[in-house]
């Protein structure tokens, strides 16, 4: 082997050590960068040279800069992120509104129903007494106001979730566009192995998509990522579709663009948007329950009230009104003729309307235990079941979200243990590459001295 070959071998060592320091520096710089996967120098023995009968070593070659990654572990973490975000979002949307139904035991929808019937009972002491009649009207107003405000708050919460979902789609589309662009750049750069930084950015975008819409990904042979939303390919190669949330119809939808128009992908969406959709659906169910209560309760009260007579001897009118556009629960209010009109309460059973005639009052009180809601439930029982349902849903989401968060933490920890930058490891590598560089430099220096010696001969 010649001294010049030795110089080349020494140089290969210098290059490898220098690359190692560069990679270590890159790792340390990105230790706190989200989505960064630790790099490593892929060193290999350089192809030996033939010198007569001998094969002489040619030093080290760098095959590339590897990226610590495991597709299976990454996919697990991504799926776990989507599930966790879904449940966390649904819980976060519903937990703040459960107090609308019962802020503490006794103050809520059931409480105002019972208070209304208790006011009617108190009126039996003197059905003609204006203060007791006014108390009945006040409790009726409280009941209507509570149902109405609960319904309005639920509608507002629904709108907020849908506005947020629509706004989230901007970020989703940006990520889809970014992944498509990265696919194109990675192909140009020679694939994910040689474009590790691009692959990291792409994986981060994929993670964001999993969290936002529950998208999944599989990688093609050329290293590009195909992003799927259920059965719809939203990114394929360098092409990205658009995703939008449509809140204009009766129920909100997630739509994916296609060559033939918008496709409904609602049932396939996951992640944050699924959480928002699920929260919206739960709230819609509760609103439907409140509508049924408002409709049936007001109908039963009004019908019975109409069978009685007020203080003037006139037949009773409606106590509650649900007329108007929109939901019955949002419209529930005291009938206009009843406002500030305690004498209009039809407690009497006969048109003579004697002061103490409480025959119809007794019948109104009897509605407390009658199955007036849906023909199967009393008003109080119906509200108790609604409160229980709200509690069960929110508690269930809390437990599920906590469980999913724990699964995600484990998945992320496993992923991080493989891909993250351990500063102690990098410090050790730095020392190692520094020593290797110094040793290679020494080889070159020694070889150079030997060459100098040769040059001085003669």
């Amino acid at each position: 082997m010649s001294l010049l070959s030795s110089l080349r071998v020494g140089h290969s060592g210098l290059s490898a050590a220098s690359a190692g320091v560069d990679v270590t520096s890159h790792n340390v710089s990105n230790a706190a960068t989200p989505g960064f996967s630790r790099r490593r120098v892929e060193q290999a023995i350089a192809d030996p040279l033939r010198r007569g009968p001998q094969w002489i070593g040619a030093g080290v070659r760098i095959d590339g800069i590897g990226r610590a990654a495991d597709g299976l572990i990454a996919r697990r973490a991504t799926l776990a992120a989507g599930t966790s975000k879904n449940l966390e979002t649904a819980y976060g949307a519903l937990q703040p509104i459960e107090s609308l139904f019962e802020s503490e035991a006794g103050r809520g929808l059931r409480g105002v129903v019972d208070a209304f019937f208790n006011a009617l009972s108190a009126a039996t002491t003197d059905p003609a007494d204006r203060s007791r009649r006014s108390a009945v009207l006040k409790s009726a107003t409280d009941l209507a106001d509570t149902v109405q405000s609960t319904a309005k708050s639920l509608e507002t919460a629904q709108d907020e979730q849908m506005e947020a979902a629509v706004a989230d789609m901007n970020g989703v589309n940006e990520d889809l566009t970014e992944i498509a662009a990265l696919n194109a750049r990675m192909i140009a750069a020679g694939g994910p192995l040689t474009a590790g930084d691009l692959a990291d950015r792409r994986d981060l975008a994929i993670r964001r998509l999993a969290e936002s819409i529950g998208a999944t990904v599989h990688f093609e042979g050329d290293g590009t990522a195909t992003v799927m939303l259920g059965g719809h390919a939203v990114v394929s190669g360098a092409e990205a579709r658009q995703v939008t949330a449509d809140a204009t119809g009766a129920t909100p939808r997630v739509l994916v663009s296609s060559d033939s128009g918008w496709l409904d992908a609602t049932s396939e969406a996951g992640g944050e948007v699924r959480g928002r959709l699920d929260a919206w659906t739960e709230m819609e169910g509760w609103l439907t329950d409140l509508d049924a209560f408002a409709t049936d309760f007001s109908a039963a009260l009004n019908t019975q009230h109409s069978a009685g007579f007020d203080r003037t001897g006139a037949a009773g009118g409606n106590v509650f009104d649900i007329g108007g556009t929109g939901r019955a629960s949002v419209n529930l209010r005291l009938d206009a003729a009843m406002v500030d009109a305690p004498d209009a309460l039809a407690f009497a059973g006969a048109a003579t309307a004697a002061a103490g005639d409480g025959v119809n009052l007794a019948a109104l009180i009897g509605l407390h235990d009658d199955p007036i809601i849906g023909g199967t439930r009393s008003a109080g029982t119906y509200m108790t079941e609604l409160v229980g349902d709200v509690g069960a849903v929110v508690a269930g989401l809390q437990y599920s979200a906590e469980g999913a968060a724990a699964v995600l933490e484990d998945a992320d920890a496993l992923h991080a243990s493989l891909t993250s930058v351990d500063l102690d490891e990098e410090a050790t590598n730095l020392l190692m590459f520094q020593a290797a560089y110094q040793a290679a430099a020494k080889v070159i220096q020694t070889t150079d001295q030997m060459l100098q010696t040769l040059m001085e001969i003669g």
Partner: protein
Amino acid sequence: MEPVRRNPLLSAERNALRLLRMKEQLAKAEDKATTGLAVTRPSDAPGAWSPIHRLQQSIADIETWAANATQGATLVDTAEEALASGSDILKMVRERAIQFANETYSTRDRLIGADEIDALKQQLIDVANTHLGDRSVFAGTAYDGAAYDALGNYLGNSDRPEVEIGKDQRVPTGLDGQAVFQGAVDVFATLDALAAAMRADDTTSIRNLLPDVTTAFDSLVSWREELGFHQVRLADAQAADTSLEKLALEEQIGADPASTYAELMGLRTAYEAALQVSGTASGAKLFDFIR
């Protein structure tokens, strides 16, 4: 086997999240300790709202009925006292009737006796017009007016006002004056006839009217007995105790002080320990030791 890598910067982020969760749990435990309530929202006890609401309704109902019974008891007591006065008046009427049925009394005596009967009749009309506040006790449900006019004509109706003191339980708080004073026998007509018989010096008619006076007296006694029965029911409703229901409710929604305190102390200790560990764990790195 790959070593487990630890990035202290990412670990710090995870620790921060864990500390946040612990803080939330601590806040909830502190809420429980300060309010004494373990159940403050639907998700705290999703399956327990049926018994909780049932107990709350029961307590509210009992308290409403007790208040109703207090109002009703005042009216019933007033009616009973009025009937006691009425009984006393009829006793005096009976004494006069027995007295002036005796032949030893003169026509002039019977004329004076007739005036006394007229006066007693007016007193009885006043009794029949007993009011509590502006509410007539013997006018049926038409209690916003007088029960009788000055001549003893009934102005009320035959219905009886009732107050609710329990589930499907009602107690009358007023009487139909006509049934009381003109039911078994028309006491005012009897007194008119008695006064007329005295003025006519007709001892036979006076004697013949004695059974009617006795019947009227017995009728008032009977009505007083009925009112006594209602007074007992009203007193029971007033005295109804909700302490058992409140105890049961407390068991459903209250936070046990001992276990709440223990939970709070446990969480505080765990939180402080986690804070200390977080601080230590993000400490030494090899880079700190390299020249």
